[in-house]
């Protein structure tokens, strides 16, 4: 029943590797990734097809302490500023965790 932060990031699939590296560097204990996200944003529609699957996005979810959340946001800000995407944050309750 621990209140924690939920960070949701949507970013170009090709940048996921860099984001994961940053997450590891700031020391998050866990994250989840959903690939093949289509969508629209400031750079227009982004969907995948056989040639341009480089234009798909990924959804990254991190559940962490509030302090860690701030670190994450600062770490990934340059990537999103350069390559696009969004990062939103909200409060949730962690109910079960393997620990």
């Amino acid at each position, binding site marked *: 029943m621990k209140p924690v932060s939920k960070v949701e990031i949507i970013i170009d699939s*090709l940048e996921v590797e860099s984001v994961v590296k940053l997450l590891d560097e700031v020391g998050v204990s866990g994250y989840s990734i959903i690939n*093949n996200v289509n969508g629209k944003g400031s750079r*227009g529609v982004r969907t*995948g*097809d*056989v*040639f*341009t*699957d*480089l*234009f798909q996005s990924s959804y990254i979810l991190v559940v962490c302490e509030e302090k860690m959340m701030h670190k994450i946001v600062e770490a990934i800000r*340059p*990537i999103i*500023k*350069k*390559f696009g995407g969004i990062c939103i944050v909200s409060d949730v309750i962690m109910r079960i965790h393997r620990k």
Partner: protein
Amino acid sequence: MDFNLIVDNLLFPPVLFFFLGMIASFCKSDLKIPDPLPKLFSLYLLLAIGFHGGVELRKTGINQEVVLAMSMAVVMSLVVPVYTFFILKMKLAVYNAAAIAATYGSVSAVTFITAVTFLQNMGLEPGGYMVAGLAIMESPAIVVGILLARIFASDNNKKEKGSAENEEHAFSWSAVFHEALLNGSVLLISGSLIIGLVTGEDGWDILKPFTKDIFKGMLSFFLLDMGLLAAKKIGDLKSVGFFLPPFAILVPVVNACMGIVLARFIGLKPENALMFSVLCASASYIAVPAAMRLSLPDANPSLYVPMALAITFPFNITIGIPLYYYLISQANVFIPVLWK
């Protein structure tokens, strides 16, 4: 000109499946080849064409003709992006001009493959080294395009922006070369070519039922998907303005003609001259977007992808290939051979 060539080419099953795909898309049918199945066909085609080219190249060896043709290939992939860039820059922003120039300087493997089968239907077999040309021509135009964009863009906005961010994620030539030279399709086709070269006839006997016999069926399936895709991209063309669609037909024809003349100078046989001119005429929709994304993120993919995919590609595989073949037969009458 012999219109039978065009008709024969259009009645070739893989090309007809391309039209079936376009029609299905225009009728808003729910026919679709779900991801990642089209990737299976495209990987297959690259592997098969590379391997086949390697086996053929082993037969001929690397003789003067090969060296001359490959040199001309490099020349064309440097010249095309430069001249098109200056034409495009008159109408478009530097970034977009550079991206489109790279698109037309680079090559399309599927156009190449369709030309090979066009020749095979007439009982001709192009030299295996032409596949090496396909691999060689994929990258240089990309590097040239980015170079041009860097040179002309820096003139404009050197002072303005680019300070804060650039420090954090600086432009990296090594990343550009990596993307241009080691992208999946270049690597798969070159690797398969080398495997074909190394294993020769023995390897061919082992893989032939896979890489040759079912080849045209796989191509049909892939072109069906290309038709679905091309028709969808035609919608995106609305926003590209009046200048680019004619460009997407004229420039390939001009490039093909340059290729035909060069091929004649170095005395290539008609089948090899066709392959060479098709390389010059085709436009890339795989390697280029991948590289542009990193190097010219401001270039707009919904300009250069639909041009290459929805105009140049269909034009080349339907009218272009037989047209170039006809022009080659004429060139052989009027233009002298310089080397050989």
